[in-house]
């Protein structure tokens, strides 16, 4: 039997595969920081967003890329992927899609910018964390973590992807955050 060469990898495929690899690791091990192939939301948009998505972006600079992917631009309350850029007010968490007990998968995936490794000390526990682990996050408004805990009732909720340049940490809804 002839052994054909495997299909070539396009640049987009290489980048999307590496981005998701980092995201999946970060999401299954909350608090651990991974690296994206390039800084910013662009790599995640390429890996996750297409015409099946409804996207809200607080940063207008991301919208051209989102439009090119074919996704629908939606308001925050009906978006399944929310790009918050820098968060000013923790009230925004109250308007996110949480899904329902019947369909927990309808909860939003939220991508925001912050500074990792400085600022408030968080103690994380839950699936993916062996006991507890600590993460330092700066650049989020006061009461952010309290609001997150208030609005989510497991298994409903949203996933937080924290971006700092090309560094990424992720907190799924199952993670319990204690502010130290």
């Amino acid at each position, binding site marked *: 039997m002839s052994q054909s060469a495997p*299909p070539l990898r396009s640049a987009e495929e290489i980048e999307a595969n590496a981005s998701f*690899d980092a995201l999946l690791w970060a999401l299954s091990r909350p608090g651990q920081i991974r690296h994206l192939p390039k800084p910013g939301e662009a790599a995640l948009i390429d890996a996750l967003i297409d015409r099946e998505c409804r996207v809200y972006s607080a940063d207008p600079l991301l919208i051209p890329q989102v439009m*090119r992917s074919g996704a629908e631009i939606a308001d925050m309350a009906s978006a399944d992927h929310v790009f918050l850029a820098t968060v000013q007010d923790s009230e925004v968490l109250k308007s996110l899609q949480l899904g329902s007990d019947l369909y927990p998968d309808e909860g939003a995936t939220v991508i925001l910018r912050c500074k990792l490794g400085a600022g408030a000390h968080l103690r994380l526990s*839950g*699936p993916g964390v062996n006991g507890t682990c600590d993460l330092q996050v700066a650049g989020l408004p006061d009461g952010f973590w309290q609001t997150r805990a208030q609005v989510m009732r497991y*298994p409903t909720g949203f996933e937080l992807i924290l971006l700092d340049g090309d560094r990424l940490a992720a907190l799924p809804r199952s993670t319990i955050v204690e502010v130290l």
Partner: protein
Amino acid sequence: MSLSELTKPWEAMSYGFLDASAKRELRRKMIKAVAVPGCQMPYASREVPMARGWGTGGLQVSLTLVNPETTVKVIDQGADDSVNAASIRRFIARVAGAPVTMDTLQADLIQSRHRIPEEILSEDQILVLQVPNPEPLRPVQPNMSIARQMHADADYGRMWLQLYEQIVRSGRVMQGASYPSLVHGRHIMTPSPIPRWDVPKLHMAKHLTILSAGREKRIYAVPPYTRVEPLVFSDVPYRVEDHGGLTCHRSGTKGFFMNEIPQDGGTSTYEVSDSEWGVKAIRQRDGEGVIKGETWYKNGEMAQ
């Protein structure tokens, strides 16, 4: 925005067989599956050149995750060399150019039908389990809309009733494979038809497990360090198969999950189910240098 910006150059086949939009959908669903451990998430389940029910769910996850640096191992009921495992392994290698291995320790991605290897999986390994029937409630509630509502309400009383009836009827729990297990204290999942022997390996494991049912179009996951507790009554403890005292007739290895091989005259011999573990034991016996990993079970007992 111009038309040339929106089109991509022609490709005979996408890398990893699945096209980019299929992969993106799987990625989005995997995120949700990891975020709500044990909760079944619906997904599209694309066509792959393999009949539904032969590992297409696991295959789609593997094809999404794989890259040319991912070393792939595929097992079928513990064996690397069965037809199903060999075809899936060859397919992944051909469409993704990924290196393949049979050694559990060298694999980055392990796609498995109905077994978890005997050697402890490490943090950077991903286990993909093929699932024929992802719905643990199906024996007690065939209507999937009502079953979904029961999951939403954590209404799992009938699962215990089912076990109770087995104990009343047969004196013990008869559920052999796909033993219903409570994940993260919230969702009951079926861990795919792995034997009872393998279920404790998922509890607080170091690796990520993704379970995918291609025919049923559902995906769910057990992240690392997540509680996976088989359903039991407080006075009827969970029991794994009595294989701790059995010896493999080919490799001489003892205290692992065995395949029973019926013999003429009504007797049986046993052969270790994790074929690569048996191969390692034989190579070691023959004086070859092999690296054996730590095993979950030691002397037939699950290490605490």
